[in-house]
């Protein structure tokens, strides 16, 4: 309740609103009265030192953790305490910082889990309306293959999803979330470990999707990447919002430099 008022920008059309969110583990307040909002259509950056509580915040928003206090609103609906799948139904999807490995699946199978509301996910429809299932499946498969191409990993499509390099896993994670076509996409360090050349391309992808209407909230330590892509940027420190502002504003903020950027940048 202290720091947030300082940097908070007015938000007319917030697609995600986090209000006074709290979560502690034992004695440690990982999220400490965090309040901010993400405006529809933006790419909002979320930065902060290691252990600041960024990933915890994602877990709270997406329903993986139950908050100790405060509320989360997605698209105007209070989703606090809902199951992750219910939050997803309201249009919010998140990725994980450590990529999830799907054992026993090929890369493209792992991608195809992404799309939401597939008719084929209903046991009954498999037998009642196989035509519709088939149609949507073909469409999804085409989408998946296209996006794999964009990410330069189309040659891996039929590889086991576990037998790929660390960076490639991050790419799959990101690509899959994009296939879900959510309104809000929460990305946890999408380009950590991704080759800079490819990261550049991903930047374009994200920007393009954003232009098509997806709102992004992204955590990233790669300054070049966030500063270039995101506006506004929310800075988190010790569980609460330190400040929020434009890339330039944040970059020159002394507190941010001290807590996060360090002398080097």
């Amino acid at each position, binding site marked *: 309740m202290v720091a947030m008022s300082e940097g908070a920008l007015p938000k007319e059309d917030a697609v995600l609103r986090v209000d006074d969110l709290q979560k502690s583990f034992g004695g440690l307040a990982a999220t400490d009265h965090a309040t901010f909002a993400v405006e529809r259509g933006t790419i909002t950056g979320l930065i902060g030192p290691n252990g600041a509580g960024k990933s915890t915040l994602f877990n709270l928003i997406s*329903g993986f953790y139950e908050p100790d206090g405060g509320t989360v609103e997605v698209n105007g609906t209070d989703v606090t305490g809902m199951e992750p799948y219910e939050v997803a139904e309201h249009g919010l999807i998140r990725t994980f910082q450590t990529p999830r490995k799907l*054992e026993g699946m090929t890369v493209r199978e792992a991608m195809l889990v992404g799309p939401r509301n597939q008719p084929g996910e209903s046991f009954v429809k498999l037998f009642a309306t196989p035509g519709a*299932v088939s149609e949507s499946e073909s469409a999804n498969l085409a989408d998946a293959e296209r996006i794999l191409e964009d990410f330069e990993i189309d040659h891996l499509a039929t590889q086991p999803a576990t037998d790929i390099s660390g960076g490639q896993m991050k790419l799959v994670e990101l690509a899959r979330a994009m296939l*879900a076509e959510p309104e809000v996409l929460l990305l946890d360090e999408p380009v950590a470990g991704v080759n800079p050349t490819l990261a550049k391309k991903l930047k374009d992808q994200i920007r393009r999707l954003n232009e098509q209407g997806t709102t992004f909230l992204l955590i990233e330590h790669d300054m070049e990447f966030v500063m270039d892509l995101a506006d506004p940027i929310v800075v988190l420190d010790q569980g609460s919002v330190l400040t929020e502002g434009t890339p330039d504003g944040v970059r020159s903020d002394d507190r941010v430099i001290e807590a996060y950027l360090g002398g080097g940048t």
Partner: protein
Amino acid sequence: MSLLADPKAAFADLTRPERWVLGVSVAFMLFLLGALLTGALGPTYFLFLVGLAGMYALLSFGLNAQWGFTGLINFSVAAFFGIGAYGSALMTAESSPIAGGFNPLVGLVVALVVALVLALLIGIPTLRLRADYLAIASLGLAEVVRLVVLNERWLTNGSAGVRGIPSFFKGWPVLSTFPETMPGLRLVVIPGSPIILGTSFWEALLNVLLVLTFAGVTFLMLRRAHQSPWGRVLRTIRSDEDLARALGKNTYSFKMQSFILGSLIMALAGVFYTHLNLYVGPGDLDPITTFYAWVAVILGGSGSNRGALFGGIVIVTIREGTRFLNDFAIPIDPAPMRLLLIGIVIVAVMRYRPQGVLPPQRELIWPSAVDGGGTTETPDSGVREQKGGGGDE
């Protein structure tokens, strides 16, 4: 993809281990056929074995739909099997302490409903929790169900078991009297060893048709369900439930569906068993059945329906084939020898099993959506620098 239209291409489509299994299966079939024709294998006995194999195949289908598809660890296969067997027996048998005398179809429905209720009863509290909860609770459930069946005589006849069970086709037109009306046949293929087909043969034949129907329908249904977005979500849950949740899948509901489906199939195996053996007792709920179902699924390959089918056949071969051991003179007591042999076969198959039967080869993508026919050029199972799991980079 049609096998009939283009067998050559279909064969070429197979992976090496698949061909191996196919080859062995065909050879085995020819061997059996030869044995049948020369009279070395009694046709009625053979049909009984086929029936048993079908039953084990059903059990492994059921377990596969839970463990293979979704990673649900169910240690109460025997309980669901027993529920199916008892449910049907208690509804149809003359000696049933509660109902009895109903048409076997009624028994079938009742058995399935009871299995459904039981599955819900154990699924609702445990499926929301961590994965091993189901394992634990089902371990307990199996014991509880077994003890209830054993001790509650007013309900189950207790240790005396249920007798006087009619054949499944009792009360059906034509089929109910089919075995009696068929004439006894005497076939002579090889002079001197005639093959005699009597009433028991025709009864066995009906049973086999029944189990083939059960297993066939189940197989087709499972295959469609598995190679689909539905099956894909299950596999995602199996390997990372959190990911499935993050992607907006109601994993609890999916797990419940898979658990119920599997349990119903197990109960179906029980129903068949009841009408195959015409007698059920508390001993039929012995955990050994759970053991064998697991062995079948693992040997066949978790997650693969064909594997489960294969596993069912392997179990019958292991359990009943070893009886032929008796036909060789050995200086040691044959019974523990058979146990020893079963043990050795299990270990040997784990060691030298056809690798490819194990991982399901097909991608879980709706077949018609994949142009290439769906076979993937996956390298033989991933890297494992050190056995014992968890070693993949």
